[in-house]
C-alpha cells in the first residue's frame, strides 16, 4: 500500500511501487488534470508540485514520494489560483493540453521567486513544451501575476 497526500487529502493505493506518480494520479486516483505528454521527462505536461517544487510526475516512482505534499492543477495554493486568473485574463490556452504543466511550473517559480526576471521565467519555463505556441501569452500572464502579487 502506498499513501499519497494530494491536494490536502490522503489517498491509499495498491500499485506497483515503480508506477510513475503520473499514472497513479491519473488512472488510479482519478485526477486527470495532470497530463501525459511524453513519459520521458521532456515536456512538462505531467508537472505537479511536490513540497512546492515542480516535478515531472512521469519520472517519479510512487514509492519515492513518501510524506511529501503533492498539489496538482486541481489543487489550491495561492500562486496557482493567482496564475489561473492571469491565464484567463490573457487568454493563454489554445488547445490547453500543456497548460496544467505550465501553470504548475509557473507556480513553483513564483513560490521561490516573487519577482522573477525575464531570464528567470525562461529558465523555469524551459521545461514545458507548448506545441500550440502560447509562450508569449504565458510570459505575459506570469508577469501579470507578478504585478498583482507585488501590488499586494
Amino acid at each position, binding site marked *: 500500500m502506498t499513501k499519497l497526500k494530494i491536494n490536502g487529502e490522503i489517498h491509499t493505493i495498491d500499485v506497483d511501487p515503480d508506477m510513475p506518480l503520473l499514472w497513479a494520479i491519473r*488512472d488510479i486516483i482519478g485526477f486527470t488534470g495532470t497530463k*501525459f505528454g511524453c513519459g520521458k521527462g*521532456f*515536456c512538462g505536461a505531467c508537472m505537479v508540485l511536490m513540497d512546492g517544487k515542480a516535478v515531472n510526475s512521469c519520472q517519479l516512482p510512487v514509492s519515492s514520494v513518501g510524506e511529501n505534499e503533492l498539489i496538482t492543477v486541481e489543487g489550491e495554493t495561492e500562486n496557482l489560483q493567482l496564475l489561473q486568473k492571469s491565464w484567463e485574463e490573457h*487568454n493563454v490556452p489554445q*488547445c*490547453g493540453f500543456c497548460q496544467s504543466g505550465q501553470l504548475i511550473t509557473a507556480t513553483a517559480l513564483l513560490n521561490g521567486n516573487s519577482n522573477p526576471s525575464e531570464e528567470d521565467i525562461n529558465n523555469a*519555463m524551459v521545461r514545458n513544451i507548448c506545441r*500550440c505556441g502560447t509562450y508569449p501569452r504565458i510570459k505575459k500572464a506570469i508577469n501579470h501575476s507578478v504585478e498583482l502579487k507585488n501590488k499586494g
Partner: protein
Amino acid sequence: MKDVKNVSRRSFLKGLGLASGGLIIASGTTLFVACEPKDIVEFNPNLFVQLNSDGNLILVASRSEMGQGVRTSLTSVIADEMEADWDRVSISQAVGDVKYGDQNTDGSKSVRLLFEEMRKIGAATKAVLIAAAAKKWEVPASELRAENHFVINANGKKIGFGDLVEIAKTLDVPKDVQLKDPKDFKYIGKYLPSKDVVTLSNGSAVFGLDKRVDNMKFAAIKRCPVAFGTVKSYDKTAALKIKGVIDVVEIPMLRKPFGPLGGVAVVATNTWAAFKGKEALKVQWDLGDNNTYDSEEYMKQLTANVHKKGKVAKTVGDVEDAFKKASKTIESTYQLPHLVHAPMEVPNAVVWVQGTTCEVWAPTQEPQRTRTEVSAFLETGEENVTVNVTFLGGGFGRKSKPDYIVEAAAVSKAINAPVQVVWTREDDIQHGYYHTVAAQYMKGGLDKEGKVTGWLHRFALPSIASTFAPGTVDPAPFESASATNVPFEIPNMQVETGEAPAHVRIGWLRSVINIPHGFAINVFADELANEAGIDPLEFRLNLIGSDRIEETKNEYKYDTARLKHVLKQAAKNAEWGKKLPEGHAMGLAVHYSFLSYVASVVEVSVINNRVKVHNIHSVIDCGLAVNKNTITAQMEGAAIFGMSLAFYGKITAKDGAIEQTNFGDYQMLRMPQAPKIHVEIVENNEKPTGVGEPGVPVIAPAIVNAIFKATGTRYKTLPLKDHKLV
C-alpha cells in the same frame, strides 16, 4: 439567473457528480451549477440552438476544438445575430452526425464555410423571439427589436428571451431573415475571449485522454516499425506477467486510408501497465515492402528527379527561351525533410463496442469519418455508432485520421469491454502520417535591369494521394496549386513535377503543401533580389506587380493588391530598413494560402554562429476578422510552429523505420527561444477566410532570408539544427 448556486471552483469539481443532470455554465471566472428545476421548458428552433425558459442559451459547436477557438468563434456568430447575452451562453459539442453538415475540422475552413449559416441561424432565432413578443403584446413585430437577451418595444418595455420560450415554441421559424449590418456586430470582429479558458486552465476540461467509463480498460499497441509490415507471430508470456496486464490481442491491419496499421495490443487495468506490457511483448514481423526505405538515399533520388525535366503542371510563355536570352540565370535546389504533427495530446480513443452498437469518445477532427470507419469495421449501420467529440490536445491534421479510433474499436470488440487505446509519444512519432519530404529545383532569369524574365519551379515530393491510392507517384492537383498560383508578373513561367513514390503514410500537417512551396518560392525570390542587387521588399513588390484579380475556381478571387498590402504592412511594422545592432538582420516572406494573405518580417541575430529570432511581425488579411483574439493567437502559434520546423523539424527513416523517438530527438521550440510576436489583422469586410494554417509557411523562409542578410550564407535545407545554428 434563477435557481443558481454560486459555488467555489473546488466544491464545483467535487460536486460534479451532483451536477449531472443539471446545467453547467462557465461564466467569466465564476462557475455556476444550475439545479434543473422541473418546470424548465426548452425551445429548439434548430439543431444549433437551445433556449431554455430560464434564459440559459445552449449553442452547439459542430466543429472540433483543438486550440483554434472554433467553439467560441462559431457560437459567438449565432449569439451576435440573435442579440443574445454572451454570458448566458454555454456551448454543447455536437456528436458526429451528417445532420450538422460537414464537421471535418480541417483546412482552416470552419469559420469560412459556416459563418453565413451561423448568422442565419442566429437571425432566424431572433426573428421568432420577436414574433413571440409581438404575439404576447399584440403589436406588430416591426415595432420591436432585440437587445442583450431581451425583446424591447419602442417605449423601452422589455421581456427576457427565456420568458418568450413558451410562445416561441408555437411559432414557425422564418426561413428568410434579415442579417445585421456588420457595423452593429457586438461579438464578431472583437477580441472575444474563449468560452473554454477557465476549464482549460484548471484541469477540468475533458480531453480524449481524460475520458473515463466504468470498467474501462487501457491498451497500448505494438506496431510494426516499418509502415504496412504485418505480425508473423508473437509471444505474450512476459507481457502477461506484468502486474495489471489482463490480456493480449492481435489487431488486424486494414490497408485503407484511415485503417489501423495493425499490431498486438496489450490490455491492462492502467496505462502504465499497458505500456510496460507492450515493451515486454515479443513480436516477429514481416516487414513488408517498405523495409529498405532510407530517407537520406530517398532525398538523393528526389533531387535527381528535379534535376531533370518533369511533368509540366503549368506553363506560360517559354522559359527555355527566356533563360537563353537572360543576362543572368541562377538556380537553386532546396531539400526539406519529413515532419510529424506531434500534438501535445497523443492519439487516443475510448471505444465501447456492445454487440452491434458502439460508443466512441475521442479527440477527433473528423467525427463523421470516424463514425463511417468504425461502423464499417464493425459491419454495423452508422446509426449504431455514436461519436462523442472531446477536447483535442492539438490536432494539426493528425487527428483527422481516425486510424487510432478504429484500433480502439478493434480492441474493445476483442475484449468485450470499454477500452482506451493510448499511443506512447514514441508511437506518435514513429507511426504517424508524415508531412511530405521535398526536393525542389528553381531556376530564374534576370534581364539587365534586374527584372525576372523566366521562372522555373520543379518539385518532387511523395503525395498525400498515395495514402488514398497506394502506388501514386505524382502530386495531386492541390499539391501543385501553391506553386502554380504564384502571383508573380513574370512573362515566362513553368512549374514541373517529378516522381516520388511513398514509403510511409503521407498525411496533411498544418499548412500542408504550402510549407515546402512557400519555402522555395520565398527563398528563391530573395536570391533573385540579391542577384539583381535590389532590396528584397522592393523586388518582391515588383514581382507581384500590378493590382489585379486572378481568377480562381471558387468565389474567392486572388487579389494581388491584398497580397502586396500585407507585405507592406509587415515591413512598415517591423521598420524594414532601419539600422540594427551588429549581427542582426531582417528577412521577409509573403504567402497566400487557405484563401488568406500573410506576410512576416523576422529579425534575427547570428552571433558566434548561433541564430536567435528576436521579433516576428506578421500581418494577416483573412477577410472579416470574426474573432481577433483567436486570430492573434493562431498567428502567434503559427510563428512558433514555423520556428519549430525551421529549427528542429526532421523525421528520418532507416531500413524503413522512423529514427526519431520522442521530444528528445524530435525537438520543439521552447520559451527561451520564443521571439516577440507582433500581429496585425487587416480590417476589411471581405468574406472570412482561413486562419489556423496560413501563418505557418512564411516563417521558415523569412528566417533563412534574414540569416542570409546577416551572414551571407544561404541555407537551402532545413532544419537549421543540421547547420549547427541552433
